[in-house]
């Protein structure tokens, strides 16, 4: 029997994976992937809560919004990362500190 908890546990696992990826990865692309993971875990939550708690379509609509947002975010972020790489030949976020001080 697949219950809400199942979804929430999976979503939590995905969230933690994303969080760990963000914290540990030095690679900008990796961090972006972590962000995608977190967004998707949130999406899973929205849809699950929409199905089990609200009995309505709102959760799914927000999930679609989040997907669109994630796509836009990924496009912009990848463009930035690509440009940084083109200028500095690196994608290690700890080394990108031109705006420090």
């Amino acid at each position, binding site marked *: 029997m697949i219950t809400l908890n199942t979804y929430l546990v999976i979503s939590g696992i995905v969230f933690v994976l994303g969080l760990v990826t*963000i*914290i540990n990865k030095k690679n900008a692309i990796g*961090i972006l992937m972590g962000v995608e993971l977190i967004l998707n875990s949130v999406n899973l939550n929205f849809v699950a809560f929409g199905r089990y708690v609200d009995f309505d379509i709102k959760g799914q609509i927000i999930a679609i919004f989040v997907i669109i947002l994630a796509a836009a975010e990924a496009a912009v972020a990848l463009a930035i990362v690509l440009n940084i790489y083109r200028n500095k030949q690196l994608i290690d*976020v*700890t080394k990108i500190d031109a*705006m*420090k001080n």
Partner: protein
Amino acid sequence: MVETAIIITLLPLLAFVIQIFFGKRLPRQGDWVSIGAILISLILSFKLFFNMIGSYDPHFLVQESFRWITLGEFNIDLGFALDSVSIIMLVVVTIVSSLVHIYSVGYMNGDPMYSRFFAYLSLFSFSMLGLVIWDNLFGIYMMWELVGLCSYLLIGFWFEKDSASDAGKKAFIVNRIGDLGFLIGILIVFSQIGSFSLSEISQSIANGTMSEGWLTAAGILLFCGAIGKSAQFPLHVWLPDAMEGPTPVSALIHAATMVAAGVYLVARISFMLTFDSMLVIAYVGGFTALFAATIAITQNDIKRVLAYSTISQLGYMIMALGVGAYAAGFFHLVTHAMFKAGLFLGSGSVIHAMHHAQHKLNIHDEDPNDIRYMGGFKEKMPKTYWTFLIFTLALSGIPFFSGFLSKDLILGGSLAFAMAHDNPIHYLLPFFGFTAAAITAFYMFRLVIRTFYGEPKRKDIHEHIHESPNTITIPLMILAALSIFIFFTLPGLNPFSASSSWYDYLVQNPVSSVSTYMGYNINPISDHTAHSAHVTAMILSIFLATFGIILSFSIYFWKKFDVEKLTERMGILYKLSYNKYYFDEIYQATFVNGLLLWNRMLDWFDSAIIDGLVNLSAWITRNFSFLSGKFDNSVIDGIVNEIANMTQDSGKHLRKIQTGQIQTYIYAALLGAVVIIIVKII
């Protein structure tokens, strides 16, 4: 009529303005501007005079006033008035002034400040004429100060000489003392009555606005102005020194007109004199008459003799006003103006001649005024001699000359006063008068004999003495003619009495407002007393004058007595008189040095105490500021700096948290979230 009088006054002012600004650039340095102005004034004054004679009314009075200040309900009116006294004064001033102007053309010829001299003469004429036509104390005071200024300017005219500039300052400062009294007197009258106008003051005094004490105080204080201006004892010291000025100035200002302004003032305010103030005035005048005459005996400077004579004659006039012989005093002012101006101009003629003679002989260290270098000028300067003799006879009070008429009236008045009041002490006044009359005759003939008679003391100078030019001698002759009795007795022809003259009719004693207020006549002199006093005075004064003249001749001309021995026998008296009773020295020792000492004390007080206090407060402020600065620097700034340092330090440490690594932040946020969750769960 008032307009004419104002034009008479303003013409010399116009001349002054033209002279002072353009005088040097005009042809003849513009002397004709001043002379023209004063001559037109003279003609207009004569017109007024004959108008007055034509109406022949002793109560003749024209007044005009205008509003000067309006402050809400409070108004001050100023005005002009013409009565017989002021018109006669206008004529006297313009006659003497015109003649002096003409005389100055010859006398001041070649002086580097020729045009300025005429400018000052014009300014003086303006102020003196203005003084005469105002009918209020304020206007009189204003003009009074202006004539004082002119006197100062003209005494110190040759200011490059120290003695002249000192004399100018002395005259000004001594006059200030009297003028202060005058000003206080005016303020008393104004505060009590609220008007400057003499006619209004007269009315309100008659209505009893002022108490007798205030009236006496005001009268004496106003008289103080006259003491200064008319050089009465004890402020007489400036007039002899004023002789440092050019001789025409001495004639115009210090003999005929300005010094008579004091007499004029007392005459103007005589309606408000109480018996006490009249006594003060009479005694000051009488004493001055005798006192100055005794000094004149021993002076050797021809102008100084005349100066002391002027003081003495002014004393006569003042005494006459004091004893209530108002018309007599003013009469003497008029006659004296003519012959004393003449005497000064005559002495100027002699000095002029002496100066030229000394100049030719290259003598520069001798005083041309000194009668010890003169003698025997009679033949050399006949015109000057004869006119001088006429003036001397007039001054000595010899019948057939104007001086006799007026002096006789004064002596008669003082005698009548003594007879009318029981107090025997008042016989001092006629005593002063008669003694001074004898002395006057004596010293005047001493002067004439020393100057014109006898052997010349200095042959070399005598040879170079010449008669002065016409511009000098013609004014002398005119003045000599005006010293003849006939002008003052018309239409009567009695040389011994002016009782039927135009003057006697037109100038009458003013009604005393004080008598009206008190309800009885404060100075009653019956016609009988006046008449008997007059006859006695006439006989006695002729006798005394003759005695003085004979004494003078026997000492100085016939040499019956040895002058040297006489002076030796007189000893201390001679010394006192020769040194003017040491008044200058006494004033120097007491007032001048006292003032200087006082000034030094004040200076010490200033520099020690006041400066000390100022310095102390400055020191305190400085030290307090120093401390306050220290407090600011250490405590206030310390706190501020500490706060800043703390902020900086904490920033320095805290910035380490701000790594810029988002991952670190997320760690922190995660940790925070975990902590919150744990706390929540617990």
